């Protein structure tokens, strides 16, 4: 083609890249005032005054006005400058009703700014704060160590882990806006004014209580954390209204560092305990070092789980409230005592005590989340069972087969019934479940064979192989412990990544 056309192309390309600068002709004569243009729209949607004593702010959602546009979610993302997929407000769907009167209802949800917030209660570094005046549950982003324990503690799936920052972030009710007399992003953005901020009264007790009768019936029960959000409607929700994702089975994240840590540490603590018992007589001297090595690797693994490990030194701050803090401090002490006892054997008892109580704290971390699969009767036998099985394999393998058999039988009870965890284990996690039982059965068989049918004491390489096999089985069990847990949340959307059996 001839040159003139090329110069036309260049001219268009140049023109394409040219933007009107702010002083150019498209600039509008906007007043530079800070006064928000939407003030008159949301004036009635936020309280006129700050909450008084025994009061706090709360979200109120008028279900009759909420018709499913979902603008609140995008406005939260945009007006708070959040990351691409991050939003502190989510929407879900309720379905139900009768053939004559089918029912659907969009549910918009942010943080419920609970009167007794589980996120706050579980945080090991006091990275949460409930504002004394407004009741807003704040998250201190620079304090957070990224342990994600709050994610497990919150029954409403509110705090969300931010990979980029290695911390959790959550809704702060746009407290900066409220302080300036502006409405939160979601309130401002609702085309039908379905979301507002109201003041609710708080019963001053220990822990504090609010009226949860206006809380959503199809959501996880409010008695645990006392969520303050009020879902109001002129028409009663049908009894059978269920979340559209209620039957979806959602395998939870495996948390690999925790899987490894919670296999190694029970083994280490168990080994140290059993080594003091008579059945350990005759074990080789290097066995003494096994708990220390396993414990150190376990704790190192745990730090890998943290998004901000350099801030983890603050973990003692939560000792008064958080099992997480207690576990971390006790395990730290336990490793210390393990080393000290080398020169001062009187620390043996101290070490045993610290280790066992530390492991109990590990159990309580999960029990405290109030998830069914992690209740005490499930978690305690699993963690202490792992310790027993692996410690026996290391110290006294002749008893390991029996212990593992017992543990496998116990675990089998979780596979039956209609609980979410049982359905997860049989359904989406069935391959991992099969692996766990294959490793378990192989462990029982090989252990029995080696200790009862092979002549003479086990050679070290053989015993090492045996321990590795049983360790792999326990890893698989711990993996399933995390993945198969029931995970309560607010109503979500249909088929958004869920699987059913």
């Amino acid at each position, binding site marked *: 083609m001839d040159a003139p056309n090329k110069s036309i192309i260049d001219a*268009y390309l140049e023109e394409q890249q040219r933007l009107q600068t702010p002083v150019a002709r498209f600039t509008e004569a906007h007043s530079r005032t800070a006064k*928000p243009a939407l003030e008159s729209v949301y004036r009635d949607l936020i309280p006129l005054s700050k909450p008084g004593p025994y009061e706090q702010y709360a979200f109120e959602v008028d279900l009759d006005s909420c018709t499913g546009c979902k603008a609140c979610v995008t406005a939260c993302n945009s007006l708070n400058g959040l990351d691409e997929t991050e939003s502190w407000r989510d929407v879900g769907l309720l379905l139900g009703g009768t053939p004559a009167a089918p029912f659907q209802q969009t549910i918009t949800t942010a943080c419920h700014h609970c009167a007794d917030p589980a996120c706050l209660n579980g945080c090991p570094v006091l990275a949460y704060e409930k504002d004394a005046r407004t009741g807003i549950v704040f998250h201190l982003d620079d304090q957070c160590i990224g342990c994600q324990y709050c994610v497990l503690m919150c029954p409403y799936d509110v705090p969300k882990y931010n990979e980029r920052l290695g911390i959790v972030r959550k809704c702060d009710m746009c407290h900066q806006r409220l302080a300036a007399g502006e409405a939160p992003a979601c309130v401002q*953005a609702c085309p039908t004014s379905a979301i507002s901020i109201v003041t609710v009264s708080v019963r001053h007790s220990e822990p504090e209580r609010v009226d949860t009768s206006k809380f959503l019936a199809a959501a996880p029960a409010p008695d645990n954390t006392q969520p303050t959000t009020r879902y109001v409607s002129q028409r009663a929700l049908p009894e059978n209204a269920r979340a559209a994702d209620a039957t979806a089975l959602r395998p939870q994240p495996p948390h690999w560092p925790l899987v490894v840590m919670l296999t190694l540490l029970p083994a280490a603590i168990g080994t140290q305990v059993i080594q003091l018992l008579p059945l350990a007589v005759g074990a080789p001297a290097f066995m003494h070092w096994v708990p220390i090595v396993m414990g150190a690797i376990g704790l190192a693994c745990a730090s890998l789980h943290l998004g901000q490990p350099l801030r983890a030194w603050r973990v003692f701050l939560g000792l008064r409230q958080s099992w997480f803090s207690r576990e971390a401090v006790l395990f730290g002490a336990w490793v210390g005592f393990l080393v000290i006892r080398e020169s001062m054997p009187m620390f043996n008892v101290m070490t045993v005590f610290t280790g066992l109580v530390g492991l109990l704290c590990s159990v309580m971390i999960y029990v405290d989340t109030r998830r069914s699969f992690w209740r005490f009767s499930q978690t305690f036998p699993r963690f202490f069972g792992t310790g027993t099985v692996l410690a026996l394999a290391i110290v006294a393998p002749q008893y390991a087969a029996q212990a593992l058999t017992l543990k496998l039988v116990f675990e089998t009870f979780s596979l039956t019934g209609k609980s979410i965890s049982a359905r997860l284990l049989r359904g989406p996690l069935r391959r991992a479940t099969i692996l766990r039982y294959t490793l378990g059965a192989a462990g029982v068989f090989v252990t029995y064979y080696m200790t009862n049918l092979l002549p003479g004491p086990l050679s070290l390489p053989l015993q090492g192989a045996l321990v590795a096999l049983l360790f792999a089985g326990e890893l698989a069990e711990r993996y399933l412990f995390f993945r198969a847990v029931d995970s309560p949340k607010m109503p979500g959307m249909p088929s958004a990544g869920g699987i059913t059996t």
Partner: protein
Amino acid sequence: MTTAVQNFLRAVDGPMTSELVLRPGNFGLGLIPARLKPVTTTSMICGFCSTGCSLKVHLDKNGEAVNLSPDADYPVNLGMACPKGWEALTPLAAPDRATAPLLRQPDGSMASVSWDEALSMFCGRFKEVQATHGPDSVAVLSTGQIVTEEMALLGAVAKFGMGVKHLDSNTRQCMATTHVAYKESFGFDAPPFTYADFEESDVLVFFGANPCIAHPIMWQRVMNNKRNPRIIVVDPRRTETAMAASQHYAIQPKSDLTLLYGLANKLITLEAVDQTFIDAHTDGYEAFARHAREFTTARVCAATGLTPDELDRFAVDIADRTKRVSLWWTMGVNQGHESTRTAQAIINLSLMTGQIGRPGTGANSITGQCNAMGSRLFGNATSLLGGYDYGNAEHRAHVAKILEIDPSVIPTEKSWAYDQIIDGIESGKIRGLWVIATDPAHSWINQGRFARLREKLDFLVVQDMYTTTNTAQTADLILPAAGWGEKAGIFINSERRLGAVRKVARSPGIALSDFAIFKLVAEYWGVGERFDRWESPEDAFQILKELSRGQPYDFTGVKDHAHLTASGGVQWPWTEAEAAEAGAKPPGQERRLFADGNFFTPRKRAKFVFDEPRPMPELPDTEYPLLLLTGRGTSAQWHTGSRTNKSGVLRKLAPTSLYVELNPTDATRLKVKSGDKVHVWSRRGEAQATAMITPTVQVGQIFMPMHFDEVNRLTYPAFDPHSRQPSYKACAVALERAAHR
């Protein structure tokens, strides 16, 4: 000091905390993230749907968009936006943007080429096709998503420059029905309403419309209605809008025409007819009344599934002449096998009761795409540029004079419609195809056929923002286009409001605005001088004004793009005379048509148009026992998702894979549970989907959202005979649980 110690133990401040600090944004924005504080703002119309919301774009010192928020001062959206609007800038930054022309290589791969090569290839190949197979063998499929100036230039370059005869647009898929219905009934494609009518009405009836999620900002206006309105929804599904209504009539799919005639009959019986209005302003009522009387209660109830009481109640609700009754429809009506008559049956109800031309009344079509209205006027498809007639020599001469071209270059016949172009590919008459900003391989009905036809095309050019649309992936040449926000022009919304868009972002690589591409095509085709008047979108706007002069949509009173923004948009008509009379005063912000009862027909009288209803072409039977309904899934998804799927936060708001809504009774019978993978098939194709069990669809019906391309493998290619719009909404399918993994 204490603070420092406290902060050491408990860091209440620091870099991560400050990421979320808000600062006053000025410009009426209130507090906004400190790091996104704009130097200034500018307003422009959203580029998704036809609501036509104004978005206030936040600009940095280079004039580049950093964020946006809905415009509080605009009469359409009053400071609100739906999720798509909030996320309108995000799709511009997608990694699959087309950044350079891509040419198919002999080995099947795509290689980037210069514009010079691309344009030479474009013209060389298309001219070759035309030389071999005749000038009509190259066709164009256009869009309702680009600005009016671009549509008009495309139509002009293709038809008056390249000698293309067959050009149609994806607005055939959404608004052709309304276009034809209004044109026959009112004498011009003229939606009579203004959004204030949502607020001014006492009875609002929505036929086949789900504004709660399809047009949330229009629904906002309904919610703003302070007259305690009665809201009636006619829809086979219990949609979000049906939930929010005072009354929902879940009629059998595609029984709406019978229902509407039945209602007309009832209105006659109830003596709700406004004979004065009919006598003064309409033609054809007597014949229509005779026709309507055939639609007895028994007949209507049998077809619709309504009870006689329900039918009576419906009629009584719209019969009260002391109330303002407005009737609204959208795709549930437009996408049907007898859609034009259905839309006209709605119009007939408004005409016979005189419920038109006054606040809160009207037979009102809610439009689909952001610029479907622009396309209806300036697409240069089946009507000549500017709403004129190809067959009329005076019209051709008039248009030629305005464009300063030789009238002989204007075709004397109208284009084939979209489906006829597809047929033309099959029959070998169309051998070259240029597709602009649409994705027929996803969106065209019975899409499997479109895919097969690809092989019959000698040369397929796709001009798009993205290289990844289904159609682009099969193209011989991809021309990289700038998107909304990267170019200037105007859109026309549902209520006839002209609004401007502008450049607030740089397009990636060497992508060019569609306007520039069309200009370059003209140059390379060797007809550049014919379009010298079209120097820029702003110049093109002046041409459009001239074309509008004396037409029902006359907007000669609008000065330019900047005038539109300063006025909060301007509804057509706004003539020079009106502007002169108004003087310094801006045009009224809520203006409706037909207040004087004068319509646009030669006799200035509206026409009653009607026909005998026909059964839908493919009814469920024993082999395909379920009726598939299709439609919008959520407010976060736009059509084929080529833009909305690019936003992380929008992807969170909708299921990411195809799902099918199924009634619990059918689910039990088919042994399907929520979340099960199911297999759905029709006589034309099949799809895999996840089941969602919900009572909101009726027994025997299933619903699938159009945003997933598998859905159009199933749809049945029926077309309304008058508008040639495809009937996407109903076809027979079978469903079963997918075999276990």
